[in-house]
């Protein structure tokens, strides 16, 4: 029976006043299509998740390619979700909540008897919504920095103007307030700057993109934050290996305790190495997700009251809901900057911690050699 659901929200472009309203309305829509009229929290989470369409500015655009690998690693490449459904091998399945790609009924009956649950592809390598946002962010940051760079090349001694001003103050802030005080020497700070600035501007741009109408937070997805945190893990340990030395890195595992406590200290310190990036990952994910859940819940209250107590009450609740969500939206604007700052700052702090006493002893090395 499952495959009857087919594709509930098809390629018709949905215009509406606010994309959040639209998403919530759509979430409610999903529910009613399945005999479950209640507007629930699960549907909000589903809306915040990854999609196979580009969601931005009041619409869904099915322009993202779908790349699937089936059980025998044969690639299935389609230009968009609609083409995938037309081809008939895979289809988008919407159970009570959530959505995922499964094999169609037809594709199963060709081979063997139809199983109760339709198997999904073994790998889904599609260019999804979040991947597209990240590419947009990368391109945007690159273009902005190239504009600023060309200005500096043209007039190196003149006062900065326009976008150059914004970037210069942010870059100076990242260097002088975030990286430099935490990693010890100026030399190491300028070595770390490319990484830290990439982190800062990438996260900041993604956070700000997520506040555009209709967009989702790519930094509110665990895989994205996990990749960023993994980069931090690698950089922190690489710098510790390189600057403090392999011996110092291993002696850090003891945590300064006598050797006979090693069986206790080494596992604890090893866990500590993993926990710090893990906390970074959860922090960014949860902060961005929480803000969007609150926003959507506040707008969802309108629909909730309209459903439970009639349209008039829904209209009555609307102004209050909108006021609160504007407030939360402004708070989210602060959080967007704050989270980029915190992620970069903690990465720098972790570099400093991993170096330990070696953070300030560049000149010692110079004297020794």
């Amino acid at each position: 029976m499952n495959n009857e659901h087919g594709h509930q929200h098809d390629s018709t472009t949905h215009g509406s006043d606010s994309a959040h309203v639209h998403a919530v309305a759509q979430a409610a829509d999903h529910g009613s299509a399945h005999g479950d009229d209640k507007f629930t929290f699960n549907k909000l989470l589903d809306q915040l998740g990854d999609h196979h369409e580009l969601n931005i500015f009041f619409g869904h655009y099915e322009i993202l390619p779908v790349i699937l690998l089936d059980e025998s690693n044969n690639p299935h490449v389609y230009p968009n979700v609609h083409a995938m459904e037309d081809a008939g091998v895979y289809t988008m399945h919407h159970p009570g909540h959530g959505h995922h790609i499964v094999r169609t009924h037809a594709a199963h009956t060709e081979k063997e008897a139809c199983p109760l649950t339709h198997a999904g592809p073994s790998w889904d390598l599609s260019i999804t919504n979040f991947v597209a946002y990240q590419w947009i962010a990368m391109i945007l940051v690159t273009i902005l920095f190239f504009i600023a760079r060309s200005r500096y090349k043209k007039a190196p001694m003149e006062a900065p103007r326009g976008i150059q001003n914004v970037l210069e103050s942010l870059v100076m802030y990242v260097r002088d307030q975030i990286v430099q005080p935490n990693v010890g020497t100026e030399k190491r700070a300028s070595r770390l700057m490319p990484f830290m600035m990439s982190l800062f501007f990438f996260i900041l741009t993604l956070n700000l993109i997520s506040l555009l109408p209709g967009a989702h937070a790519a930094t509110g997805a665990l895989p994205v934050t996990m990749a960023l945190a993994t980069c931090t893990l690698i950089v922190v340990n690489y710098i510790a290996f390189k600057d403090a030395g392999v011996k110092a890195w291993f002696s850090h595992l003891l945590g300064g305790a006598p050797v006979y406590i090693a069986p206790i200290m080494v596992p604890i310190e090893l866990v500590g190495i993993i926990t710090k990036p893990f906390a970074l990952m959860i922090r960014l994910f949860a902060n961005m997700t929480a803000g969007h859940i609150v926003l959507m819940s506040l707008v969802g209250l309108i629909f909730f009251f309209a459903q439970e107590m009639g349209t008039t009450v829904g209209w009555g609740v609307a102004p209050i809901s909108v006021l609160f969500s504007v407030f939360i939206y402004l708070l989210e604007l602060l959080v967007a900057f704050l989270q980029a700052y915190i992620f970069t700052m903690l990465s720098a702090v972790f570099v400093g911690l991993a170096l330990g006493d070696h953070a300030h002893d560049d000149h010692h090395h110079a004297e020794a050699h």
Partner: protein
Amino acid sequence: MDAVAFAWLSAGIGLGITVFGVGTGIGRLAAAALEASSRQPENAGDIRTTMIIGAALIEGVALLAGVVCILLAVKNPS
């Protein structure tokens, strides 16, 4: 009450306790930072930085609890 009702109840209560703890923690942190920077305004910048790191760490633990609460709240009623 069935298991799902218990899950929803515990999500609500858990979030309440989390918010209580975090509110207390960050409140104390901000109070201490404010006091310190009013005594020594010349160190206000350093104090603010340290405060934000501390706040982020407290918030990180809280968000872990929040994620657990979300997982409880979206428990599938099937």
